[in-house]
């Protein structure tokens, strides 16, 4: 039954893609795709609910096998949950031009590749899905942009970085298959060299695809280039498939990893979460900012995985399962609110024609539905109660807090540092999304285009409304998923299904009570306040009128933090003053916060690679005589080596 529904959904996605590529059937094709995605979502969550497996089981043999188990079901469900609204959004967002039709068609290829990676039960199918996922997303970006030099360069650096990093994925999966450990966790001895090699390779390979710092360099460049619904799929689903792979390898197949590896994962997660959100704060392009927040949220998920690994190594199995559930819950939550925010950004770009956050403003009044949905998404990603982001961040904080409770001194302290990093990350995310909400939705419009913005058409509003509703539902009742997620750890049984989060060793998170108290009290207080107000007056700024030229900017709002973190971030600024006859004529200011890892790790590496290539090019003279000389030299060296017995 589940299998049939899933197959029907996947075929509908494929059929819809083929239809959407035709001129006359564009909208119908996207609608069929959206229906297929809904069927995938239904079958995925149903699968998670039943807790049984459908289709083949995992095998290390190189034969094509597909099947679904509850963990795949969770990720398939998330894929459908994000893809359905994104496709509905596309019906009016993508233009019915040749380019729009190709994007609509390629989207279905992209979705099927993602589903293939999730349903694969053997190494070959998994790696095929993995590579197709990268290639189809790169093709989507290339097709959707007019072929300017910059975007081509970005796409090729995306492919280069993910393929270089992707080597790790191949090494990890093939080593696992060689050891026969895919589907048989006991096949690898704990503490063996192979186990460590697999874990490190998976962390590098899948971490690159997930965008963890310092392997993130492609993510904030590539994600914003795609059209909004595709960005939503890339940030919402594609990087989650990378995390799916990471969880399969590290938690399920690679045995119990040593404590130090869990601490390493915690370190990577802490660096990604703090680094992602700090650079997002100083970013002025809305989609780039959202892409950097994906790094932050991947960091939070990786923190959950790290806590799971450390706790498991210390024998605290119950808490390890809770930590894994925290990571999985945050995966679903992040997919939902990040897709919502990317779709909102697309709607704003469509209405205003810009994504520079200093050029929007006042959109909550011009676009009340879109604005309200975006507001919900911003509160959810900032981790504020009673929305879904808070539930999963609360769980992750609890998991990290219990690392010192079960650990020794070193790993316990690492857990405490990660706990502080996550707390700071949550506060920084509040800071960042106050800024985004304020600059985009509130205050006066900052440009004439923003003042004339019009509300998005119904399909766009409906797509965002559904995702906002999911944010609220998962915030009110995270326990619906949590009980099943605990059971996804191979060593743990599913917990009871309740609405709130009730975990022994915590004060528990009664989400329903929280919603009732917060919403009820706010309503009562607003009623008691009454409507009595003085005549509307302009903002009082100490006798100064608030002029558009004096409006606060993104850079101004974040300046205190930039000054506090100056020693770490090394911001650059230049002030040029032009004076004529002692009178200042012109002052120009430019400031930026350079990405340190780009500047100090990737730039030297790229320079060195280009330099090495320049040297290597000298060998390529183009004259036949030189090449013959190379061949003769090679033969002579090989003969000499054979004579000396180097080949045994």
């Amino acid at each position, binding site marked *: 039954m589940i299998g049939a529904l899933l197959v029907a959904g996947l075929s509908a996605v494929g059929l819809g893609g083929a239809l959407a590529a035709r001129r006359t059937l564009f909208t119908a094709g996207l609608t069929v795709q959206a229906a297929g995605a809904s069927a995938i979502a239904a079958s995925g969550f149903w699968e998670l609910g039943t807790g049984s497996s459908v289709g083949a089981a995992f095998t290390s043999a190189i034969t094509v096998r597909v099947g679904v188990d509850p963990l795949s079901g969770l990720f398939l469900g998330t894929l459908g949950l994000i893809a359905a609204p994104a496709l509905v959004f596309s019906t009016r967002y993508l233009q019915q031009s040749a380019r729009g039709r190709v994007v609509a068609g390629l989207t279905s290829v992209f979705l099927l590749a993602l589903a293939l990676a999730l349903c694969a039960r053997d190494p070959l199918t998994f790696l095929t899905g993995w590579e197709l996922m990268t290639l189809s997303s790169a093709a989507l970006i290339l097709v959707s942009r007019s072929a300017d030099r910059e975007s081509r360069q970005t796409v090729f650096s995306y492919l280069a970085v993910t393929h270089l990093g992707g080597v790790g994925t191949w090494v990890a999966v093939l080593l696992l298959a060689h050891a026969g450990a895919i589907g048989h966790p006991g096949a690898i001895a704990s503490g063996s060299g192979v186990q460590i090699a697999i874990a490190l390779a998976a962390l590098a390979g899948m971490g690159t695809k997930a965008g963890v710092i310092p392997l993130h360099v492609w993510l904030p460049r590539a994600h914003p280039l795609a059209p909004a619904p595709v960005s939503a799929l890339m940030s919402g689903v594609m990087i989650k498939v990378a995390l799916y792979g990471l969880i399969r390898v590290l938690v399920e197949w690679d045995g119990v990893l040593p404590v130090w590896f869990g601490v390493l994962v915690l370190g990577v997660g802490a660096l990604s979460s703090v680094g992602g959100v700090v650079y997002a704060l100083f970013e002025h392009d809305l989609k780039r900012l959202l892409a950097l927040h994906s790094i932050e949220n991947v960091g939070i998920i990786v923190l959950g995985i790290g806590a799971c690994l450390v706790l498991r190594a210390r024998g605290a199995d119950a808490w390890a399962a809770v930590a894994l559930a925290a990571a999985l819950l945050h995966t679903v939550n992040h997919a939902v609110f990040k897709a919502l925010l990317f779709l909102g950004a697309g709607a704003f770009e469509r209405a205003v024609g810009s994504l520079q956050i200093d050029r929007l403003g006042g959109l909550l009044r011009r676009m009340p539905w879109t604005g309200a949905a975006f507001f919900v998404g911003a509160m959810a990603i900032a981790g504020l109660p009673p929305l879904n982001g808070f539930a999963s961040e609360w769980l992750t904080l609890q998991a990290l807090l219990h690392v010192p409770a079960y650990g020794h001194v070193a790993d316990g302290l690492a857990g405490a540092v990660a706990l502080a990093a996550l707390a700071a990350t949550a506060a920084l995310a509040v800071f960042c999304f106050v800024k985004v909400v304020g600059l985009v939705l509130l205050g006066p419009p900052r440009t004439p285009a923003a003042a004339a913005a019009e509300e998005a058409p119904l399909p766009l509003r409906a797509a965002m409304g559904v995702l906002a509703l999911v944010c609220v539902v998962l915030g009110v009742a995270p326990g619906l998923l949590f009980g099943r997620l605990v059971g996804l750890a191979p060593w743990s049984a599913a917990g009871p299904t309740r609405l709130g989060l009730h975990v022994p060793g*915590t004060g528990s998170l009664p989400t329903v009570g929280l919603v009732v108290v917060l919403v009820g009290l706010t309503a009562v207080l607003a009623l008691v*306040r009454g409507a009595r107000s003085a005549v509307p007056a302009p903002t*009082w700024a100490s006798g100064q009128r608030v002029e558009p030229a004096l409006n606060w900017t993104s850079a101004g709002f974040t300046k205190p933090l930039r000054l506090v973190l100056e020693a770490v971030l090394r911001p650059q600024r230049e002030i040029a003053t032009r004076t004529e006859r002692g009178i200042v004529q012109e002052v120009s200011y430019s400031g930026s916060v350079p990405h340190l890892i780009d500047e100090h790790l990737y730039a030297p590496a790229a320079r060195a690679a280009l330099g090495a290539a320049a040297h290597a090019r000298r060998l390529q003279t183009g004259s036949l005589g030189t090449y013959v000389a190379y061949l003769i030299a090679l033969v002579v060296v090989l003969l000499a080596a054979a004579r000396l017995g180097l080949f045994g």
Partner: protein
Amino acid sequence: MSAVTLVTAAGQLVGGIALAPLLPGLVQHWKGRLQGRRGPSPLQPYRELRRLWAKSGVTVEGTTAVYRLAPAVVAASLAAAVLVVPLTSRAPSLGLGHDALVLVGLLALARFAIAASAWDTANGFSLMGASRDLTLAVFVEATLVLSLAVAALIATTTDLTGVVAATAGSPVWANPALALGSLAFALVVIAETGRQPVDNPDTHLELTMIHEGPLLEYAGRDLAYLQLAAAARHWIVLALAVQVFLPHPREIWLQLALVPVGLVVLCGALAVVETLVAKMRVLLVPRVLAIGAAAALLGIAAHLVGSL
């Protein structure tokens, strides 16, 4: 439900909402005395609330529901936080439980609401206060979570009633981990209540405001809600300090009876600190809070070494 639970619940509600304005009132009163003035009466915050309650609010041109609802949201989240912080180890769960990390989330919600209202009015002075508040919040939140983590590790639960029970009966100086945690929490108390040397509650100069900045546009009942919320914030952090980080007895009735004593002592301590220490540069505050976070980390290390 036993008598002590009922009395605790009543104390929590009455104290956190009705008696909370007495705390900033007491600090101001004693500060005046220490500075050789007569100082305002401890009841002054109530008089201000009465005055504000009768006045009309201010509608700012071009604002949205975010500006209108922010005071209600701030007051509601602080009221929820009052329910979360237990007065004794036998506090009943009033629908919200007593989790320490839920408290952190509720404080963040209040901060978000008030900062968003500053953007809605587009008042530069409000935004200046909001941006400073949010910058400090990064360090306050990390320090708060770490200091609560010290106590939670000792109690092996983040349930605050369990924490109060586990830290009862042993003086804070007998446990190095808890002593270091209370040092960190002391800094959080000063930062969260917006008192010197972090912020100056008496300032009338917009340029130096942190917590008062985003309140500039509000009047009437809106401002009354916000002032009540500020008082409730005093109550929450001081009640936590009394019941977790100060010595408190195991006997529940005694525990309950000593709460007012502890609160009054801490208000006196705040007044003394405010008289002795000048406001520091806003950019230096994160360093001081970072020292607090380091102390809490040392506390966790001490706990880990001690439990080997």
